[in-house]
C-alpha cells in the first residue's frame, strides 16, 4: 500500500516538469503582453516594449525558462504582475473558496443524485425512471450561468431568501486565519456568521452541482442496475435476506465503486475552478483567477496556478484509487 502511494506520488515529478514546460511555452506563445492589460488604452508601443524588457520577455525562451525553474526550485512561485501579491499568497486566498464551493456542489450532487439514481434503478422502466432521465438531461444541458442567473433572480432578487454575491455579508466581520470562511466562522465562535457563509454557498452549489448531480444520478442508476443482476445478489435474495439488507450490504456497496470513481473525478474537476459560477456569484476562487490571468498575460500566476491545480488533481485521483481498497477488499493494492 505504502509503495503504491509513494510510486504514485513520485509520478508527480515528471507530470509537473512536463506540465511546467508546456504551460510555459504555451502562454508565451500567445500574442500580446501584460503591458496591455496593465495600462489598457494608455499603453503605447514604447511602454509595451519597456514593460516587456522589465519582465525579460524579449529574451530567448530557454533563458526565461531556466530563470523560472531556478526561482521555483527555491520555493518562490513568483509574484502576480497584476496584483503584485505573491502567487502563494493569492493561492492561499483563492483556493479555500474553490474548495468550499466544490465540496458544497458535490455534497448537493451526491445527496440528491444517488437517491435519485437508486430509485430510478429500482423503478426501472416506470414513469419514475423516465422522469429521472429527463431531469438528468435537463441538468446536464442547462448552461450553468443561465441556471445561476435564474436561481439568483428567483431566490435572491424576487424572494429575497438568499444572497447574490460573495462569500459572506458585509454585516459580518470575522478574522480569517484559514481563509476557509466556514471554518473561520466556527473558529470565531460566531454561529450567525457560519450560517451566513452557508447561505452564500447554497445557490452557487446548486448551480455548479447541477451537472455532477445529473451524472451521479445516471451512474448510480446504471451501477445499481448492473449489480442487481449479479449472481450474488440473487443468492442473497434467495437466502431470504430482507430486501433492505440486500440493498445495503450487497447492492449498494458494490455499486459504490463506479459511483465513487465518478464522484472523485468530478471533485478533481471542480477543484480546478468553476469560472462561470465564480463569475456570476462574485466568488473569488481559482477559476476566475486563472481566467483573468490569461487575459492579463499574468505569467507567474498562470505558471504557479496551473501547476498547483495539477498537483491537486493528481492527489485527488490518487485518493480515489486508494478508496477502492476501502470499498472492495479484493482490490486492496498490496503491490506485487
Amino acid at each position, binding site marked *: 500500500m505504502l509503495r503504491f502511494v509513494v510510486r504514485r506520488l513520485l509520478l508527480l515529478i515528471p507530470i509537473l516538469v512536463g506540465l511546467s514546460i508546456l504551460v510555459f511555452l504555451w502562454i508565451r506563445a500567445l*500574442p*500580446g*503582453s*501584460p503591458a*496591455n492589460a*496593465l*495600462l*489598457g*488604452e*494608455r*499603453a*503605447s*508601443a514604447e*511602454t*509595451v*516594449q*519597456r*514593460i516587456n524588457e*522589465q*519582465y*525579460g520577455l524579449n529574451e530567448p525562451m530557454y533563458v526565461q525558462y531556466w*530563470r*523560472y525553474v*531556478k*526561482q521555483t526550485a527555491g520555493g518562490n512561485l*513568483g*509574484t502576480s*504582475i*497584476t*496584483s*503584485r*501579491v*505573491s502567487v502563494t499568497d493569492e493561492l492561499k*486566498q483563492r483556493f479555500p*473558496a474553490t474548495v468550499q464551493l466544490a465540496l458544497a456542489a458535490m455534497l448537493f450532487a451526491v445527496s440528491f443524485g444517488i437517491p435519485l439514481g437508486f430509485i430510478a434503478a429500482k423503478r426501472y422502466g416506470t414513469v419514475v425512471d423516465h422522469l429521472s432521465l429527463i431531469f438528468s438531461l435537463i441538468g446536464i444541458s442547462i448552461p450553468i450561468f443561465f441556471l445561476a*442567473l435564474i436561481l*439568483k*433572480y428567483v431566490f*435572491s*432578487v424576487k424572494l429575497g431568501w438568499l*444572497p*447574490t*454575491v*460573495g*462569500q*459572506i455579508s*458585509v454585516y459580518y*466581520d470575522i478574522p*480569517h486565519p484559514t481563509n476557509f470562511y466556514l471554518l473561520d466562522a466556527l473558529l470565531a465562535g460566531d454561529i450567525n456568521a457560519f450560517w451566513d457563509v452557508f447561505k452564500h454557498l447554497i445557490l452557487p452549489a446548486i448551480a455548479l452541482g447541477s451537472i455532477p448531480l445529473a451524472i451521479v444520478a445516471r451512474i448510480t442508476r446504471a451501477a445499481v442496475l448492473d449489480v442487481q443482476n449479479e449472481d450474488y445478489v440473487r443468492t442473497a435474495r434467495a437466502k431470504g435476506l430482507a430486501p433492505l439488507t440486500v440493498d445495503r450490504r450487497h447492492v449498494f456497496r458494490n455499486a459504490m465503486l463506479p459511483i465513487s470513481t465518478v464522484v472523485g473525478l468530478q471533485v478533481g474537476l471542480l477543484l480546478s475552478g468553476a469560472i462561470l459560477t465564480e*463569475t*456570476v456569484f*462574485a466568488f*473569488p476562487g481559482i477559476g*476566475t483567477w486563472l481566467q*483573468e490571468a490569461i*487575459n*492579463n*498575460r499574468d*505569467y*507567474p500566476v498562470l505558471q504557479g496556478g496551473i501547476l498547483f491545480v495539477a498537483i491537486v488533481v493528481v492527489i485527488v485521483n490518487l485518493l480515489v484509487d486508494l478508496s477502492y481498497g476501502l470499498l472492495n477488499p479484493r482490490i486492496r493494492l498490496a503491490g506485487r
Partner: protein
Amino acid sequence: MRFKAAALALVAAFAVAAAGCGGGGDKEEGSAAGGGGNATQGGTLVFAGASDPVVLDGALVSDGESLRVIRQIFETLVDLKPGTLELVPHLATKWKASNGGKTWTFTIREGVKFQDGTEFNAEAVCKNFNRWFNFTGSFQNPSATYYWQTVFGGFKKTDPKSGAPEESLFKSCQATDEYTAVINLTKPSAAFLGALALSAFSMASPTAMDKYGANEGRVDADGVFHPTGSFGTKHPIGTGPFKLESWTRGDRLTLARNDDYWGEKAHLDKVIVRPIADNAARLQALQTGEIQGYDLVEPQDIKTIEGDSNLQVLDRPSFNVAYVGFNSSMPPLDKLPVRQAIAYGLDRKGVIDSFYAGRAQVATQFMPPSVPGYSDSVKKYDYDPAKAKALLEKAGLTLPVKIDFWYPTDVSRPYMPDPKRNFQAFAASLNKSGFKVVPHSAPWSPDYLGKANQGLLQVYLLGWTGDYGDPDNFVGTFFRSKQLQWGTTKHPYPSIHLGLERALAITDQEQRDEAYKKANDDIMRQLPGVPYANSKPALAFQANVKGYVPSPTTAEDFDTVYIQK
C-alpha cells in the same frame, strides 16, 4: 521627449487659477444630488468596484479601483471642484508662479494632521516630491509610475535600462519655512499645476512611509516587483476624510471616517468597497440591497434601473471620445479622399441613437466639448453614402474599395459599451457607401490592444478616457508624436504634429485655446481618424443615497455622501 509633452500638457486652463489665486480654503460642498444642511449622519455605504485595488499608494498605481480608494484616504495640494474640471485650493491654500513659470511657491494649509498624528507641513510636501523624484530600479517602469512619467518625465537618476525619459520637468523642492513649499522646474510650465490634482500626487505621511517600508520590496527573477513593506496594504496614512480600517482581498475593503479630519467631516461612518467583476452580478447585488452603489453601468441595464423606484442612475459628465482609427500608412488610407469617404460613410448618428441608451452625442472632433480648445468650426461629416461613393470614384478607385475593419471582443468600454454592434452598424453603412468591409476581431486585452499599438490594424474601433482636463491629454496623446497605431511614423501629418507641439508650449491661456482650436480644425480636415462618440458613463445607486457628485475625471468623494432615512 515625452515628459515635455505631458508636463506642459497639463491643464492650461487652470493656469488662470494659478496666477496668484488663493483665498477661501474651505472644502467645497458642491453636491448635485442633495443638500448638505440636513444630511443624515452615520451609516455604512457598500460600493462595488470591478476588482480589488492593487496597492494604496498613489505614486505606484494607474488603475481606477486603486485610485478610487486612494482618493478617500489621501489628498492633493490642489483639487478639482466636485463635478467639474475647475481647480481649487486643497492642501495648498495659495500658490504663485515666478521666474517665468519655473518656480512655484505654495502656501501650505495649517492645522492639518496626517492620520497617524504627525504634522502635515511644507517639509512633508517636499519629502513626497523627493520620494517620487528619487525612485530607482523597477519603480521607474511605466507600469509602476505612469503618472509621474507622463507629467514630469524622468527621475533624478534615470536607469538607462528602464527606458524612462532622460530629462525631468522636476528640479527640486524646498521648504523655505514651515508652511511654504517652493517647487523648482527645469522648464517654464503653466500647466503642471493641474496635474497636481491627480491622486498620483497625493501627500502621504513621511513617517508612515518610513516606518512601513513604502519603497521596500524585491524584484523576482522574472522581473516582477514584489512589495514587502505594508504601507500600501495595511498602513496607507494620508490626510483625507477616511482612513483604512481593514482590507481582505476578494472580499471587502473597509474605510472608516477620520474624526480628526481638518475639513468638514464625512457623513458616513464607514464605506465598504467590494470587488464584483461581473456587471450582471453588480446589478443584482444592487437590486437586493447587498450593495448601495456601483460604477460602470452597462447601457442595457439603465432602463431596468430607472424603472425601479428604489434605484437611481447618476451620469458622469462626458470626458471621453470613441473613434474609428486609421493606420494611414496602409493603402488606400494614405489617400485623403478615401478617408473622407469613410467619414461620410459612417452612420455615426445612427450608432449613437441605437447603442448608447441616449447617453452619448456624436463627436465632431477628438475631444469632448468640456475641454478647452474645443472648436466649433471643425468640418462636419454627415452620413452621406452618395457623397462617399462620388469621392472614391473621383479618386480613380474601383468600387467597392476593400478595407479591413477591426473591433474588439470580450469588452465594454465607457466610450464604447457594445463594440460589436457599433461595428456591425458601421460596416453596414460603409458597405452602402462604396466600400467592402472585411470584418476582423480579437479579444480586447491584450490581443486587440497589442495589435493596435503595433500598427497592425488598418481601420479599427478604439477610444480614450481623459485623465485631466487639458487638450493635450486628448489630441496630443493621439497626434502630437508619430505613432505606429496611426501609421504616422510612415505617413505623418506634419502640420498636425507641429501644430500640437507648438500649442503645448504656449503658456498664455487664450493663445493656447486658439492654437488647439486650429489644431482640431486641421485634424478634422485631414482625418487621421474619425471620432464618433462622446458618452456619459453611468453610475447606479439606491435611491436613498444622496450627495455623490460624479466627476468627469472620476475624482469622486464619498465624504459628501449620506443615506437618507
